[in-house]
């Protein structure tokens, strides 16, 4: 409860800091996704490794589910974004 109260009236520098951190996380995930896609493309061009491509796909999907779709919010009681 205390935490929530803090979130409703945040001090501006703290908010700016959290915001910057959120943007940074988004960028890092994008870079990771781009690298994985590049690997995927290379693997796909070099042969017919269906299993390897599936595993890379699962990693990419996992990144998106965790960091972009916040799947963990389903299990949290808290309303907003951590």
């Amino acid at each position, binding site marked *: 409860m205390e935490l929530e109260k803090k*979130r*409703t009236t945040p001090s501006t520098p703290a*908010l700016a800091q*959290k*915001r910057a951190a*959120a*943007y940074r996380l*988004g*960028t890092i*995930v*994008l870079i990771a*996704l*781009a690298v994985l*896609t590049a690997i*995927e*493309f290379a*693997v*796909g*061009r070099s042969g*017919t490794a*269906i299993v390897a*491509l*599936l595993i*890379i*796909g699962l990693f*990419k*999907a996992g990144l*998106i*589910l965790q*960091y*972009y*779709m*916040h*799947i963990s*919010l*389903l299990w949290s*009681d808290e*309303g*907003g*974004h951590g």
Partner: protein
Amino acid sequence: MSTIASTMADYRHQLRNNRLGLWLFFISEAFLFGGLFVSRFYLWGNTRPELDQTLGLTITSILLLSSFFMNRAEMAIAHDDRRTFLNSLLITAALGILFLIGVVGFEWRGHIRPWDGAFGAVLFGMTGMHALHVLSGVIFILIVWNNGRKGHYSSERHWGVEACAIYWHYVDVIWVFFYPALYLMGTVVR
């Protein structure tokens, strides 16, 4: 699916219900797309048609980039940055439309047509069903953008934005699996 509840407690309760409901919808849709994915392997086996690899990589990158901007928009409204929120939404929608142009305008104008055996059926079935979802996502984004422009969302109350964002990411996740299934897996038949 959101509702404008009278108190914050009501809102949070409804928010948790909404979130679960939307994820259940994703699970349901996963079976639809999963059915198409399995059909691809059932009919194509270890083969695939020759497709424009540059185009495939380009539209895949566009969609990933759009997910980045969608996330940025959601993070922006969650942290009271209205300007970034609205701009990022517009960029996301633009990238989504670019993706649709890539699929409908270029991929669908290639040498394979829908009635060309299992190659045509599966290629158009998978990209068509996915493109339909991208289109609905773009419309969703534009609705959210319009409401955001009128100041309807706050850092505390933005379920509409969140729903739109995770729906968009979900459509991206589907493409994460569809792209290799169509473009990279199996040996090319010439």
